């Protein structure tokens, strides 16, 4: 079965999509994604490539935070992505870390031509663990893979680090549009998986069978299932 769409039957609410509605509201899920990483690794470019399919070589430092919205069609669902682009600079750190809390998934980016940005990955990962929810999904992305001549971080090192941290790994290029879409789509898929898992565990019948450790922690809200 497709883990990304646990709800295969048409629900009663789906009928409304037949009607003309504000296109803005016309989506099934809304996911919030955060892109983090050192300054100038290409977070903004990565986002622009994905959202607008555009690229500018000029470097413009992001002020604090910014976001773009893109609606995609994935696993038979319309998913609206609000993708937050953060400033890599230290001075905005208080604002950017505040946004970790609302993110379902992260793209942690380094620059394959910049050793320092790679060395910082561990710290970024710690930040995620500190400020984000426990199930935060993270993809490690080594950007600028078009600049093979200037590469200082071998693919293998990236892969190993990702494995060590428990993240999935991509090398990508916003400039040459390599793996950009794939990165986002993979992240969306992983979030979908987490979503369907959370739904299963929230269901007493299923979670009882699974006897996950979270079952004991979980406070069952009184209104949990039916109001009947």
């Amino acid at each position: 079965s497709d883990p990304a769409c646990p709800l295969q039957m048409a629900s009663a609410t789906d009928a409304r999509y037949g009607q003309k509605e504000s296109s803005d509201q016309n989506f099934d899920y809304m996911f919030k994604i955060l892109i983090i990483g050192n300054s100038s690794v290409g977070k903004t470019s990565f986002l622009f490539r994905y959202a607008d399919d555009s690229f500018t070589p000029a470097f413009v430092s992001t002020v604090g935070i910014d976001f773009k919205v893109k609606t995609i069609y994935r696993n038979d669902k319309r998913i609206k992505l609000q993708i937050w682009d953060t400033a890599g600079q230290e001075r905005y750190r208080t604002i950017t870390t505040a946004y970790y809390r609302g993110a379902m998934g992260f793209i942690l980016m380094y620059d394959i031509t910049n050793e320092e940005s790679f060395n910082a990955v561990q710290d970024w990962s710690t930040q995620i663990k500190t400020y984000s929810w426990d199930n935060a999904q993270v993809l490690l992305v080594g950007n600028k893979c078009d600049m093979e001549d200037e590469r200082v971080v071998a693919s293998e090192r990236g892969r190993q680090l990702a494995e060590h941290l428990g993240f999935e790994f991509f090398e990508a290029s916003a400039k040459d549009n390599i793996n950009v879409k794939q990165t986002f789509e993979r992240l969306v898929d992983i979030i979908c998986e987490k979503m369907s898992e959370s739904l299963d565990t929230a269901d007493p019948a299923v979670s009882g069978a699974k006897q996950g450790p979270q079952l004991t922690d979980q406070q069952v809200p009184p209104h949990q299932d039916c109001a009947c």
Partner: protein
Amino acid sequence: MTYELNLNFLKELEQETILQVLYRDQMVRKVDEERIRKLKMQLQQLRWKGAKSVNHEYHERSCARCQKSLGLVMNRGAVCNGCSHRVCSECRVCLNHLWKCTICYAHGDMKVKTGEWFFEERAKKFPAQDRHETTGAKLLKSYQKLSKISVVPPTPPPFTVSTGGNTTMLQEISQSRSFNKSVENLFLSLATNMKKISKSQNDMRSDKSLLTTDYGQDVERRKERRSQSDTAINITSRIRNAPSLQRLINGARDDNEVYTKRNCKQGEDSPDSPMSDTVFCGGKKHDSLYSINSTCTEAGNFDMAHVTGEIEFAMRYIFKTYILEVCIKACKNLAYGEEKKKKCNPYAKTYLLPDKSSRSKRKTAVKKNTVDPAFHETFKYKIEYSQLETRKLQISVWHSGALKRRVFLGEVIIPLASWNFEDNSTQSFNWYQLKAKPEKPEDSLVQYNGELLLCAKLILPSQSKKCQYEEQRNGEEQAAAAGQLHLVVLGAKNLPVVRCGGTLNSFVKGCLTLPDQSKIRQKSPVLKKEASPEWKHLFVFDGVTASQLWQSHLDLGVWDQASFGSADQFLGGARLSTKSGDRARYGGQVCNSQSKLQWQKILSNPNVWIDITLTLH
């Protein structure tokens, strides 16, 4: 870490930038809140439908959902794993090998659709925090508290009332006194910066706005104004090159403002080769433009033959695909493009007026040495049916001469409003008499440069307390009280394309001219690489009274930010005014009375957001 979260440590301009982001985020959130509200309502309705209530006695064995009786042997029903109620087989939804009753299913469905699953998961780690409040909302709140702003909502009207801890309208009005100072702080820095910029551009701007808004009025005055600016040399050289001044003026009306140099006509009609020629835009040089309006021929660089002959074409609208098809079959008895040599190489060209941009242009192949050319070409325009009545189909026939010299051979203009597309008989081919260009372009043929979407609100702070007790005096009070005009520039569409690749780096300038001719100027940030920009930027015109505004007019212009070293380019503008005379000379009655009504609506509905769509000229 979030307790002291605010924007205090940032510079003013940084704060401004981030606030814009926060407001955009607020809009996204409100759309989502609305979606979630609907979802919850639907679930609630579903619940009510099958609800068992205490004061009603139920059959021992009935489905908890549809309340159909269940049998003892057949159709016994089964207990739902989710809610432990017995439901019939119809009220189940199968999920893999398991099933749930319809409500348990809908409940889970809603959990994923609303994102509640995430909040629940997150609450495991941060149980103390407000589940739904986002960082953006928190930041905005802290900012507004600090700067004592109750609300600065560049939010469109549909979402003014929301549930998520946002200040309601009432509070907003009652607190709007403390408003002025803080909003001032917010925008003062920006405004002063903008003023500097716009001052340096004043000459250009007034010059251009003259071209675009007052054209066709006073030739002498216009010449005079131009000569004050550094554009004079260019323009005079242009005049020298052009066939006649009158032609130029007519061209200006047609072409609105884009002047192209003589050699540009070589580029015209060959849009595949981006022009490297110099194009004059309000007198400034632009290098990397191509075929902006592609109406150079109309702008005066062409000869006119004595128009004769007819053109045969058919037109139909395909409702299914929103496509207007124009099939140009042939012409007969055309005038010779070069009378002396008895030479004619005709081709036909169409525009869907008032759009005269290259988007709207279609062209047939050039037929050699004939005055009875057969074209058999079909052009397609994708356009909403409702839009058609605002358009006119212009089919013109041209001679393509040596050295790319163009000669106008005649044209037909069909107002599509009067065309019955639903009647099949109108789809057949017909011959139409070609006509010469009208001496003066019709009002309704004014340049269409897209649309600007706004919402506006006149804020009159003194009203809040008075309104409950002294309603009868409100009118006077409001007219005299200094308030603020808030204008959110939401976005624009169908802007003329002036860059390769079809995108723009656009921004909006607003200029409110008060009765004493003093001006308040505002400018939005530049939105890069968007063909249909959505600035969502708030203009605040402070310290204005309603009575002043009735005598004022507000000019809005959309500009494309120039690359280094050249001037910004005007894309289109519109004026809001109560005076109908202001606009009567162009734009036709429709847009004129429209913008007039919209301005009146804003002024007569203080403290209410009004949505506006303006046609840019």
